[in-house]
């Protein structure tokens, strides 16, 4: 596996608030492969955005990365642990501005309302390269053209409020890609857009990824987006990766009860109309009251069905459940029972769901 770009090990990002510590990211381990698209999915508040911000170290106090390693493979053999750099150091700023880039959910809010889009693109380019003002402007216009903005030579001097939502998101993508990053992190890039624009933006990201050969980490709670763009999927719940694997495996053979729940809760067009949508019972626990043991045990139907007592007090490890698939669930690794394989445990559970 020397095609890795990022290796995240046991990453912990906590928020130290007056009322207590919120463990937004609590022991995430994840591999991101070069040139691929990884989707991170989960409910609001599961820590997916904070995890992405931790990679760039743009988590600000009271949030703090308290542990783990984020190894960045600049080239095969040239590996740095990004957490060795100080948050505000020159090296970290160069990484987050030049080698990586992030696009945000609300393009209107993430672009400065009082600066032209051109000036914000040029700023990034000039900060990380020796380009002159004139060269930078020319490159900005070219990039705006590339992301499909009509009349880029005029639009470069437009303010965000003069552009439509889709155009703004294109401008933000242009800004992100102006330094040709190896890693693009897209935090819900289509959530604020209407459906037709969503498809265009996803197509644009995919096309630019092919042209520039970059790796994409896309954060979303929309499984439709995942199906459209991702090669791999990591499912997050309460600050942990509960399942990780190729997109087909996750969609067709989900191994973690939470993933199954997510997939069941998608409305399907062929379903009986007016039937109640199968939602995951309960709500995400309060951030100050994280359950002990497996974080999902309070909402897990399969725990009740299988009457697993273990889940309530001991957290399960991430277990290999397929060739490239991992899940964090005691169903797949009963303690002291090495004989029971992953597939075994999964099938009865699936059967039960099928019978419901």
């Amino acid at each position: 596996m020397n095609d890795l770009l990022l290796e995240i090990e046991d990453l912990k990002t906590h928020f130290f608030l007056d009322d207590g510590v919120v463990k937004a990211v609590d022991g995430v381990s994840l591999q991101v492969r070069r040139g691929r698209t990884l989707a991170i999915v989960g409910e609001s508040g599961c820590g997916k955005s904070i995890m992405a911000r931790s990679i760039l170290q743009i988590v600000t106090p009271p949030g703090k990365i308290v542990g783990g390693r984020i190894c960045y493979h600049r080239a095969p053999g040239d590996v740095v642990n990004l957490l060795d750099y100080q948050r505000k150091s020159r090296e970290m700023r160069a990484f987050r501005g030049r080698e990586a880039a992030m696009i945000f959910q609300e393009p209107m809010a993430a672009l400065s309302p009082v600066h032209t889009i051109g000036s914000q693109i040029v700023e990034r380019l000039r900060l990380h390269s020796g380009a002159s003002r004139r060269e930078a402007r020319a490159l900005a216009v070219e990039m705006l053209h590339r992301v499909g903005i009509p009349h880029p030579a005029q639009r470069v001097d437009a303010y965000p409020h003069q552009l439509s939502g889709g155009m703004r998101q294109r401008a933000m993508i242009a800004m992100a890609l102006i330094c040709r990053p190896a890693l693009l992190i897209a935090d819900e890039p289509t959530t604020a857009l209407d459906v037709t624009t969503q498809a265009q933006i996803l197509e644009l990201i995919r096309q630019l990824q092919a042209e520039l050969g970059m790796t994409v980490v896309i954060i979303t709670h929309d499984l439709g987006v995942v199906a459209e763009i991702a090669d791999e999927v990591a499912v997050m719940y309460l600050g942990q990766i509960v399942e990780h694997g190729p997109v087909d495996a996750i969609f067709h053979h989900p191994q973690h009860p939470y993933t199954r729940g997510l997939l069941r809760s998608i409305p399907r067009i062929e379903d009986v109309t007016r039937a109640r949508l199968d939602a995951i019972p309960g709500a995400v626990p309060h951030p100050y009251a994280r359950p002990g043991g497996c974080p999902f045990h309070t909402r897990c139907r399969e725990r009740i069905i299988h009457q697993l007592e273990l889940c309530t007090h001991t957290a399960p490890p991430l277990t290999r459940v397929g060739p490239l698939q991992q899940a964090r669930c005691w169903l797949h690794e009963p303690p002291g029972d090495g004989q029971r394989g992953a597939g075994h445990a999964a099938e009865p559970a699936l059967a039960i769901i099928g019978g419901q």
Partner: protein
Amino acid sequence: MTSYIIRRVLYFIPTLLAISLVTFFIIQLPPGDFITSFEARALANGDQADLERAAQLRERYGLDQPWYVQYWRWFTGVLTGDFGYSFQWKQPVSALLGQRMLLTFLLALATTVFVWAVAIPMGIFAAMRKNTLGDYAVSFVGFVGLATPDFLLALVLMWISFFYFDMSVGGLFSPEFENAPWSLARVWDLLGHLWIPVVVIGTNGTAGLIRILRANLLDELHKPYVEAARSRGLTEWRLTAKYPVRVALNPFVSGIGDTLPGLISGATITSIVLSLPTAGPLLLQALLSQDMYLAGSYIFLLSILSVLGVLISDILLAWLDPRIRYQ
């Protein structure tokens, strides 16, 4: 942008007309006028010359006419640069106002510069170091500044400058420069005296603006566009100065309009304590003695200053924030 400015300047004219009308009307509201008391005194003294003089004045300024005729005479005079005659000072109003307005304007300008130079860095510092010792220190100084009455601070500073620096206190000039023509030495003397009123008048505004800027900046500091700028690899200071501070400055700029009239009317007590040759005390006297042309011209100039201030701040705002321009 140009059409926006032209439009704003055109609004300026009817506003001024309306203000001048209203102020003149209000000045006329109390019964009697300056000439009435002047005549009463002349009668008591049996001074025939003064009585004739009073009649002349009454005739000349149309004081026996209704107020709107008086207004019209006065306003048309103003347009040609004749602000009327101060009965109390027995001088043309323009001569009386010229010097004082210049000094008032100078004081206002110096105070604004002082306020901004202190408030902006302190406000940014307090916001960026929120809830730290430094923030508390700045806030403490700010609250003390807000809570201290200006006249008290004026007295304390006068005492300090007299006791420790052996300077003449009060006024804007040393006695030897009081009526001297303008020269480099006189300007230097002015600067030596100017700091006390600037600090006294500016403290309140500074404290207020620190609070405003801190609060505004705290609203902006965690906006997504700041995070986006951070993700581009800018240093903290650079991205703060370029993005959120720029947005948080809007209320400062809109406040310019209030600065000029505020300094003149609000600083009156300070000016009296410090015996400054500025506009405030003169206006107070003119109003007390019903010296109507002086008072009217004064308030008219004040109105021009406030409307001008609003105009300047509107244009600056449009320049600073493109969203306003395109509305």
